[in-house]
């Protein structure tokens, strides 16, 4: 995995200017939403029990988790394309796990900006050594949950062609739920956030932990992460049995 990451990063940094521009623009993009929240908090002092600093934790954790996923496992976003166009052939012949190879096959340069922004937001709004360490652990779990969630839904392409549009819509819901405080959503959406679209485990519970650490929250996150990763491997491997090669002549880049 780390070798793939190294080569992906080297490839992404081939054009230094383009890489740095993507990173800086993503930081700017995420930071612009601070204006949205400053304006909202000028209209209302607290959202539920959350202050501006607390809301920025949702942003820090979402950006950090999103960054981790798209830096290390960006290949997951290509699963539908690989399935539809028979590009999985190149991975099937390798003596390694197919899903691991596919997941680590690419890196999104702008995700480095997401990860950096996560740390910047944490340092500006909620800095403490304890928070920094806990945050670094939590975004790994968040990233793994988000990655596994995408694998589960993108694997539907094995069964239903073009189902990636459906998966992408669910991904939008996942991201939108992660970026906003839980208190604004209805009960139905909260149930969804702790089941079919698990933003609750990836971001909301980690926010509770950064505000008030409880061991049971950590256990929930660890158990859910193990569960969803197992599910992701199961669904992908089951789907792989339906995969038919296209005899596509292609070389891995």
């Amino acid at each position: 995995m780390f070798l793939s990451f190294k080569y992906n990063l080297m490839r992404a940094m081939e054009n230094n200017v383009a890489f740095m521009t993507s990173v800086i623009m993503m930081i700017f993009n995420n930071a612009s939403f601070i204006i949205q929240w400053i304006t909202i908090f000028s209209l209302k002092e607290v959202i539920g029990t959350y202050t501006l600093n607390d809301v920025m934790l949702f942003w820090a954790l979402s950006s950090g988790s999103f960054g981790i996923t798209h830096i290390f496992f960006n290949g997951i976003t290509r699963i539908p394309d690989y399935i539809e166009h028979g590009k999985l052939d190149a991975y099937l012949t390798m003596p390694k796990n197919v899903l691991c190879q596919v997941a680590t096959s690419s890196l999104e340069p702008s995700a480095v900006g997401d990860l950096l922004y996560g740390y910047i937001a944490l340092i500006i709004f909620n800095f403490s050594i304890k928070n920094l360490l806990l945050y670094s652990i939590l975004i790994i779990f968040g990233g793994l949950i988000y990655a596994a969630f995408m694998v589960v839904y993108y694997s539907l392409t094995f069964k239903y062609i073009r189902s990636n549009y459906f998966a992408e819509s669910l991904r939008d819901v996942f991201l939108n739920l992660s970026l906003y405080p839980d208190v604004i959503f209805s009960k139905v959406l909260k149930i969804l956030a702790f089941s079919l679209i698990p933003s609750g485990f990836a971001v909301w519970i980690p926010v509770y932990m950064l505000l008030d650490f409880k061991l049971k929250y950590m256990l929930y996150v660890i158990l859910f992460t193990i569960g969803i990763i197992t599910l992701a491997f199961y669904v992908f491997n089951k789907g792989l049995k339906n995969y038919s090669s296209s005899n596509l002549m292609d070389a891995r880049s």
Partner: protein
Amino acid sequence: MRKYLFIIKTTFIDSLQYVSSLLFRFCGFAIMMYVLTSLWRYIYSDGTGVINGYTFSKMIWYLLLAETISFGSGSNVSSSEVKDTIKSGNIAYQINKPYNYIGYVVCKYMADTFVRFMFFLVISIGLGFIFAGAIEGFNYMSILAGIPVFIFAILIVGLIKILISLTSFWVEDSKPFQHVYNKIVLMFGVFFPLEMFPKLVGTIIRYSPIYGISYGPAKLILDFSGGLFRSILISQLITMIVLLLIIKTVYRRGVKKLNVNGG
């Protein structure tokens, strides 16, 4: 003039072929609107009836109308297409055609945008009734007045994006500048009406293009008045004239600088 009408006609027919792909963008639009509606519903839930002149219903309709312009004018013609044409050197084939390249892009953009805009307008009206009910005190005159105002708003967005894309004559990639522009409009024009900002920021927005492309058109539908209609039209006309002059200058300088290797 006939050649430009022909460009509009062919692009319009071409755009109709891709209506189905817009359906998938609808999901992203609806999700975003649902989340923002939830946020505003929560803000208004403590019994606050009116915030800076906006009831919950008016706030949601403002968001929807401003988002409609933003999503509806998201055609690639004025952004990536112009940028790619310059970057790839294909601009060399465009400047010796019997039409003005900028005129060609504007016509193509307007035709392509018409289909997208109408699609998002219908969706927005539907979502508006679901999320916020009918617009309070709606004046039917605003529909008539809204037609030129929305057309000009879309045209101005296109001109701004073309201007940003023309920077590709000098910089390697103009895409980051498009992102910056999109974010500024989103934060200061779409998410909040100018009344929600401190006075100084509100005044800056009032005299910036955001007034004509976001705040003005949405506000006109919500609170129609002859005075508001006139002030938006004046702002839009001034913005268009200034933009056209800048585009003309930048384009002329860019073309002079152009150096394409034949092959």
